[in-house]
């Protein structure tokens, strides 16, 4: 039977960001997949080497609009480690609060987008309605809805007033109630279950082999979570659980994310109630001594790793950013094979791809479905014009 090549992207409604897949499909079944993520390559890593630490922070925040705090915090954390700088406890707590609020807004966003991918627009609207409450809290604390600009080397830039803490605490009960509703909805809504169950399944062994991270890995029962493994910020003092699931499919990833919403709410509540008094920043030198660190951080999408090498000046020698999405692509290529064409958006969305993160650097990956081994074929000249293209072979 003839195989059809379907180019998806760089502009496609399922993708809020540019990426190009070439799906080779047989009828409605996917045979193979080729990925090209380079559309967002901007050269941030090069720029990060040419700017000083103060200017790098806003730049890294704009690696990605959804996990902006993750990148900035992770970089600040790494540089502080090289400088051997202890940041004040209040600053740690504020960073933790923002980080968990960010995780909540990201997971709510994901839940909505996943619902949208299966055409369930009502859930999409509802989660985004509740996301506004999180956004309001973030805006009150940081002054911005998306790029918070809270971090600086040695602490945070804004303090939380008691009124802000009260306002944030007053919003939590509603969110807790809504998260309970979503958990119920996710576990009982019929069309949702039909589209999520058994789709894009990854076994525990596959997750370990292909190096998936974050909720994708935890949905398969792999309990990697940097917050527990290598506690940073205030996570060593805050009680919380790592949410895992055993099903390994999109449904499991949904349950993990909804579970993490609840955990994040608990963390935010704990931090707001137990925030210590004191200064919010330590005096940081402008230059960092020679040194290197692998700074890891549990971003909403999974483990984010920054490898930072400093050379005694106020600029970094090298900042190597490995985003969770990049680590997850290999596993996506594996679990897409032999799936239904209609499930592409769901499976791809299930890792919560953050392409602007990923394609500071670009990857093409392709998978030989039958053998289950990653082989890299020749990258053919891309046909980017999706609108009038049809190729049969």
């Amino acid at each position, binding site marked *: 039977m003839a195989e059809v090549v379907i180019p998806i992207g760089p502009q496609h409604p399922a993708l809020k960001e540019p990426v190009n897949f070439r799906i080779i499909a047989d009828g409605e079944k996917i045979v193979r997949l080729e990925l090209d993520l380079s559309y967002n390559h901007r050269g941030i890593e090069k720029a990060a080497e040419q700017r000083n630490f103060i200017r790098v922070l806003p730049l890294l925040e*704009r690696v990605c609009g959804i996990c902006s705090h993750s990148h900035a915090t992770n970089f600040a954390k790494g540089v502080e480690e090289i400088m051997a700088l202890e940041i004040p406890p209040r600053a740690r707590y504020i960073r933790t609060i923002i980080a968990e609020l960010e995780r909540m807004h990201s997971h709510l966003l994901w839940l909505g987008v996943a619902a949208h991918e299966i055409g369930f627009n009502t859930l999409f609207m509802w989660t985004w309605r509740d996301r506004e409450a999180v956004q309001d809290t973030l805006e009150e604390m940081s002054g911005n809805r998306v*790029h918070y600009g809270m971090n600086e080397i040695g602490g945070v830039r804004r303090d939380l007033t008691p009124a802000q803490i009260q306002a944030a605490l007053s919003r939590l009960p509603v969110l807790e109630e809504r998260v309970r509703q979503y958990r119920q909805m996710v576990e009982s809504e019929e069309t949702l279950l039909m589209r999520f169950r058994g789709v894009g399944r990854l076994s525990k062994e596959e997750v370990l082999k292909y190096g998936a991270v974050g909720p994708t890995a935890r949905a398969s029962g792999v309990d990697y979570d940097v917050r527990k493994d290598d506690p940073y910020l205030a996570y060593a003092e805050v009680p919380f659980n790592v949410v895992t699931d055993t099903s390994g499919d999109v449904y499991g990833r949904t349950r993990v994310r909804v579970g993490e919403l609840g955990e994040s709410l608990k963390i935010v509540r704990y931090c707001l109630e137990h925030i210590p008094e004191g200064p919010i920043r330590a005096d940081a030198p402008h230059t960092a001594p020679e040194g290197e660190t692998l700074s890891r951080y549990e971003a909403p999408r999974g483990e984010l790793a920054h490898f930072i090498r400093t050379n005694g000046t106020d600029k970094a020698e090298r900042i190597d950013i490995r985003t969770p999405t990049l680590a997850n692509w290999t596993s996506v290529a594996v679990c897409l094979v032999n799936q239904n064409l209609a499930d592409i958006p769901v499976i791809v969305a299930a890792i919560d791809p953050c392409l602007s993160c990923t394609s500071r650097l670009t990857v093409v990956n392709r998978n030989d479905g039958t053998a289950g081994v990653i082989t890299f074929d020749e990258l053919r000249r891309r046909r980017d014009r999706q609108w009038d293209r049809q190729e049969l072979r």
Partner: protein
Amino acid sequence: MAGAALPLGRRLAGWARLKSPWITVYNSGACNACDIEIIACLMPRFDIERFGILVKGSPRHADIMIVTGNVTLKQASRLRRVWEQMPEPKYVIALGACGAAGGVFHGLYHVADDVNRVIPVDVYVAGCPPRPDEIIDAVVRCLGLMKEDAAHGGKEWRQEKPVPAPETGPAAGRRAA
């Protein structure tokens, strides 16, 4: 008002255009922030459908294209092509500091900075990212432009010089052929 002199059909079309602007979003290399703020516009709090605005997947159906972010070099030719697929009359909104001048990415080796280098931009929106209300405001300003254009009978009256198509490289030339 010049509108009174226009025939009824034209006036009706002009009115309908203002009441039903459909948008398509093109991420030309942004950091996502603008995109999620556009999606936030669809939400119950902002609900742009009450103005008749719909977000369409196909540029063939759209009246207004919102370009988010700086244009990466790879996206430049694609952006131009998607823009060419939109039916007239079409308008472009460049979102955020990146759309206007590259923002924090200004001068990076893989960024073409300004959207206006690739396609003619009608409205710029400041902010990093702009708030949803600012995005809605930009669409409304764009509607104002539409109204004036309808009165002037075209877009030419406010363009000093047409934007040239970007000089494309050998590979891009091959693709187009």
